[in-house]
């Protein structure tokens, strides 16, 4: 059985101008010990979908799903108390901006301690010991001293390590990392990603990595979900995705990467912008920007061709001849 399984998750927000669909029919499974990356541009609904899984969306959000099951627990009908026990316990999340996610009024030690106090029945001394071990584990030098530091005394990389320490404090089985390294410098980003992968491997955690950086995806993920305007347009194992993207959007995104283009040529671009609340096109959401779109794309929304663990949301997925380069 999958660790997390989602079927047809949709999230709509009630706004002053009517309902806004932020996430539409997202379905995915995460296995134990798997690293799943969700990529997409801003506004593609990748964070919102995962916040829905964590139950962290505000009341204006209307969440519907045929199935939303984590480790045998139905998240749809979860009572608040059970939800609080689950979050931070067996399911945990790391947020994008470490500097703003920590409480500035408490020492980082107190914030890690709170996690352990709520989820376990360790006594005060055990908790302190546990927190120091966690700080050590995430690579914070001099944990004894750092335990008593406030968030403002730490750098971005250090704060993110504290966030990770909090998230893994109760050995979660699923860790959702929302752009964990975006706000950090590259050498620090490399350290944080390595740390996450290390922890993921040693604890056999499921890891969902939300990112917009194709480089991060290529270096970390086992399987990749590509989102566009709230829809899941493609899901493939990482090698296949980079070598044989099947959705025109994925293909266009990959060819727009500066490192994939030839220097003497112009960068291939995707014309237009991601549709917003009021300019959602008919038919396939990508059709106004797609090179291959025809009348069918402009009128009929494509259905997800749900192959087992791969998926393409397109009437005409790209196909590849057996000989590459043809």
């Amino acid at each position, binding site marked *: 059985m999958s660790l997390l399984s989602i079927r047809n998750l949709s999230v709509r927000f009630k706004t002053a101008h009517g309902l806004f669909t932020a996430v539409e029919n997202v379905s995915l499974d995460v296995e134990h010990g798997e690293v799943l990356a969700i990529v997409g541009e801003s506004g593609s609904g990748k964070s919102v979908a995962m916040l829905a899984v964590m139950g962290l969306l505000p009341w204006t959000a209307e969440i519907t799903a045929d199935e939303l099951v984590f480790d045998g627990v139905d998240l749809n009908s979860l009572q608040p108390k059970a939800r609080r026990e689950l979050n931070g316990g067996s399911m945990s999340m790391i947020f994008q901006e470490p500097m703003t996610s920590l409480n500035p009024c408490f020492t980082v030690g107190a914030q890690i301690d709170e996690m352990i106090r709520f989820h376990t029945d360790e006594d005060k001394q055990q908790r302190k010991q546990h927190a120091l071990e966690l700080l050590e584990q995430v690579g914070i030098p001099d944990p004894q001293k750092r335990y008593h530091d406030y968030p403002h005394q730490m750098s971005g990389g250090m704060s993110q390590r504290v966030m990770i320490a909090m998230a893994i404090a109760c050995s979660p089985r699923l860790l959702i990392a929302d752009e964990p390294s975006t706000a950090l410098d590259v050498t620090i980003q490399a350290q944080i990603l390595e740390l996450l992968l290390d922890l993921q491997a040693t604890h056999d955690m499921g890891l969902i990595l939300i990112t917009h950086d194709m480089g991060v995806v290529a*270096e970390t993920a086992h399987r990749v979900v590509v989102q566009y305007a709230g829809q899941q347009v493609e899901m493939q194992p990482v090698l296949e995705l980079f070598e044989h993207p099947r959705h025109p959007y994925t293909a266009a995104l990959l060819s727009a990467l500066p490192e994939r283009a030839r220097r003497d040529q112009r960068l291939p671009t995707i014309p237009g912008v991601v549709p917003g609340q009021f300019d959602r096109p008919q038919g396939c959401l990508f059709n106004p920007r797609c090179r291959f779109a025809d009348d069918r794309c402009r009128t009929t929304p494509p259905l997800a061709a749900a192959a087992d663990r791969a998926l393409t949301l397109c009437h005409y997925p790209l196909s590849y001849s057996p000989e590459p380069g043809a």
Partner: protein
Amino acid sequence: MSKQAILRARNLTRYYAVNRGAFKPNATVKALNGASFDVFPGETLAIVGESGCGKSTLARVLTMIESPTSGTLEIEGNEIALVGGKPPDELRRHVQIVFQNPYGSLNPRKTVATMLEEPLKLNTALDIAQRRAAAEEMIAKVGLRPEHADRYPHMFSGGQRQRIAIARALMLNPKILILDEPVSALDLSIRAQILNLLGDLQDEFGLAYIFISHDLSVVRRIADDIMVMYFGKPVEVGPADRIFEKSRHPYTKALFSATPVADPRRRRQRIRLVGEPPSPLSPPPGCAFAPRCPNAQADCSNTEPPLEFRGPVEVACFHPLD
């Protein structure tokens, strides 16, 4: 070389005094600690480094927003009496800047046309009609439509806003454009559009770009020369091809290997840098990179390595990589 540099910087420094409270003496932060380089017309110098390495301080000094603590800056052969004095307006006009975040750098209360006309109003004798014509011409050049002229910034997407910011920077026909992380706030599919636009404008106007970025895939794409900075100082300066092919400074090498590459077949062993850049209030003795450097030896923490030519590339390291 026959090429004439449009901008020459020699030993630029910028120090800040930091107040540490009533009972401690002020400390000095050496945000920029000796940068020398040349920029040529129609070429791009990329400045690469992590936060706190002095990239943005350098940008502020070059745009004459701030004057350096010491050092000289020449634009088109005219030395600017920077230290203390106010640089002449004509020279200021030659250097313009595009900031990282187009959501913060445009005034939300002004229309696009007003923003584009403002520099002309302050610096030229053009009348209203001429200013408007110039603004409309520039709007077309950066790939916006004429009807955009009377709209406000909130009506535009991030990519379009960055086009507006670029248009504004070009209104006074500058010779040098400083691009401070111009695409890092943009989405992937928009990034390519802006990079192409920058390339086209460079060809059309023969602009010299100083491109500040930490995204090496973008730098590789557009840079002619690279200056890698660490802790306020250049550690490696030279032609982009050479540095990408074989970096000599251990920091450059670590930086390159830390950058994720969008190719799952190339997951490789990274050079692990331990720790973080040092605090500017307590700089380490000798080479600033020595505490994190995998190749550091005893002499590295004694004296600071000077920037020296090693082949075609300048490197500040006692033990450069082969």
